[in-house]
């Protein structure tokens, strides 16, 4: 057990896998500095600095995985996935299906995501819904150092392609690199429990298994990444007002832990999704479908991002799911009674 920062917890899982398995390599732009300790320890043949050629190096990582390596391709910011979408959409995700499970692609794409530090609409997107919309990919988005470590450990043992998203607001090193730049004149609303925590080395967090962060019978809040911390903060306020919330941390978007969601919503009759990704055609709608398909008809609301994330910090704060927006949506949901049997 060690107390680690979010980024260090991920790097520790990577280092452990690299030490154990010579097939694990890291490639991406600036990895020699962004992963300087891995570069110094494992050398330039296993930590490969790439040109600004996402289509080529992510595509090559797919081929390398099919050829027997277990690459981690780093995308820096998930927004840059636009430049290499083909390798995920049409290559990595398809091989297992085409070969009926005979040939797998043990690839991890590691990328940062998310906003809250004023970087604007091309550098702060979540995009997990877009990526999880592709069958054949797994998409994980941890909210704590322990989960970050455990999910990276699991991703590196998994035989299919996994997109591992690291929220920048949880990573002091990324926030320092992209947001603060050595300044003491800026601050960010960083969730303390997400930034640093106890990590059990080598402990796996299985893909596709959600975690219950808080128990309550009045309302189910489903979220992930920074949203989980905002939801917990909102739940504490709501509890004082007599609204008790389940807070479910999905941890994986795909596979989606429908069982956990349905079990909670069956009990509470109300579902509030807190999703930093775009509102329409994404995870929040998928969660609504999941409970409907399970035969439930809960009260439903969602706190998401509606359009292009604005640059100005005060506008950005309004655009991203905040404690205030979550609490308000929860109060609204709690006002109406669910029409599930047993709830009146």
């Amino acid at each position, binding site marked *: 057990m060690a107390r680690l920062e979010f980024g260090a917890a991920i790097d520790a899982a990577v280092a452990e896998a690299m030490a154990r398995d010579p097939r694990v390599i890291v490639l991406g732009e600036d990895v020699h500095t962004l992963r300087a300790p891995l*570069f*110094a320890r494992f050398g330039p043949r296993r930590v490969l600095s790439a040109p600004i050629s996402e289509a080529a190096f992510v595509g090559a990582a797919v081929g390398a995985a099919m050829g027997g390596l277990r690459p981690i391709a780093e995308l820096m910011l998930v927004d840059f996935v636009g430049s290499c979408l083909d390798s995920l959409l049409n290559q990595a995700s398809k091989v297992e299906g085409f070969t009926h499970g005979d040939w797998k692609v043990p690839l991890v794409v590691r990328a940062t995501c998310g906003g809250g530090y004023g970087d604007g609409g091309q550098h702060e997107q979540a995009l997990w819904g877009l990526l999880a919309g592709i069958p054949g990919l797994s998409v994980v988005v941890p909210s704590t150092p322990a989960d970050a470590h455990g999910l990276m450990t699991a991703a590196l043992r998994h035989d299919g392609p996994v997109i591992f998203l690291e929220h920048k607001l949880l990573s002091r090193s990324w926030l320092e690199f992209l947001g603060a730049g050595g300044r003491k004149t800026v601050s960010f609303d960083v969730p303390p429990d997400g930034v640093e925590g106890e990590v059990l080395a080598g402990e796996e967090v299985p893909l596709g298994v959600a975690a219950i962060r808080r128990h309550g019978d009045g309302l189910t809040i489903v979220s992930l990444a920074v949203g989980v911390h905002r939801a917990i903060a909102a739940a504490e306020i709501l509890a004082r007002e007599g609204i008790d919330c389940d807070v479910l941390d999905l941890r994986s978007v795909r596979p989606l832990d429908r069982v956990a969601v349905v079990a909670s919503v069956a009990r509470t009759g109300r579902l509030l999704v807190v999703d930093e990704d775009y509102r329409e055609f994404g995870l929040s709608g998928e969660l609504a479908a999941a409970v409907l398909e399970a035969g439930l008809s809960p009260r439903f609301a969602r706190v998401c991002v509606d359009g292009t994330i604005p640059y100005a910090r005060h506008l950005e704060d309004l655009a991203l799911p905040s404690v205030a927006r979550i609490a308000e949506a929860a109060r609204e949901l709690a006002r109406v009674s669910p029409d599930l049997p047993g709830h009146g």
Partner: protein
Amino acid sequence: MDAAGLFRQMARARAFEDATSALWREGRISGEMHLGTGEEAVAAGVVASLRPGDAVALDHRPTPVLTVLGVDLAGMLAEMLGMESGIHRGRAGHMHLMSRTLLASSSGIVGSSAPLGAGFALAGRALRPGSVAVAFFGDGAMNQGMLLETLNLAAAWSLPLLLVCKDNGWSITTRTDAVTGGDPVARARGFGLETVDVDGGDVGAVAEAAADAIDRARNGEGPSFLRARVPRLDGHFLGDALVRAARSPAGDGRQLLGDVTSAALSRTGGGLGDRARSVVRLLDLMRRARREDRDTRHDPLERARSTVGQEVASRLEAEALAEVGRAVAAAGGAH
């Protein structure tokens, strides 16, 4: 444009970048603040040949070109400060500055200015005969697929396009030549483009080369590729961690150097040769990151001073500072 006119634009661009830097340090500008210091001669030299109806596509260092083009300085500063009075009401920020009236658009996605420029050229040819488009990008962008595809597209469609590669040798903390095969100019020539290679710190040389290429494009003689070597005077972005570490190994660099040393000495890992190669490469990067200063050898503004004489230069710089100072005050950035 005469030497004084070019110097004046360079001084305006520099004053704007320096004002931006000060506001960033005060914590009033967020995000990755990429300055274009070192690129002023390219901005002034290329824009000197542009006229209304021409279009420009820009990368993540758009402000020198936008300043020279004549975008409202107070509006740009207010945008960076995230204010309603900003040119995009605080929605876009410094990586996504645009001007519809001036047909200028920037983007933070590396390489994207090239296809955008090609599209501007296509629209210009159809709607504004005799107009041209210019796409600005860095040396690192030369490895981006969409940019390489655009070199071909521009040649295949004989577009009225000038592609300007501002070659500062860096892609964030990567030496671009360490991840690049062949030479960018030869590469462009391979696609059938006219090419020209200039010292991007020499404003006269840039202006002349750009004028030729833009003339050809206006006359329907097809696209050109201009490589301008430039210095990078303020790191990749303000607060660049590598530059800070390099300038102060015992301060800002201490954590990095400590982490690297202990990792290199790990019980398990790569062979000794591999580890040594990594450490040597990191030290070399830090050495290079320390090097580019605002001296008479590197800084295009210092170099241009001699072309107009000290007295004129000082007067033009004072005017530029006053203009930008007024813009800062008008934007609400002054204290």
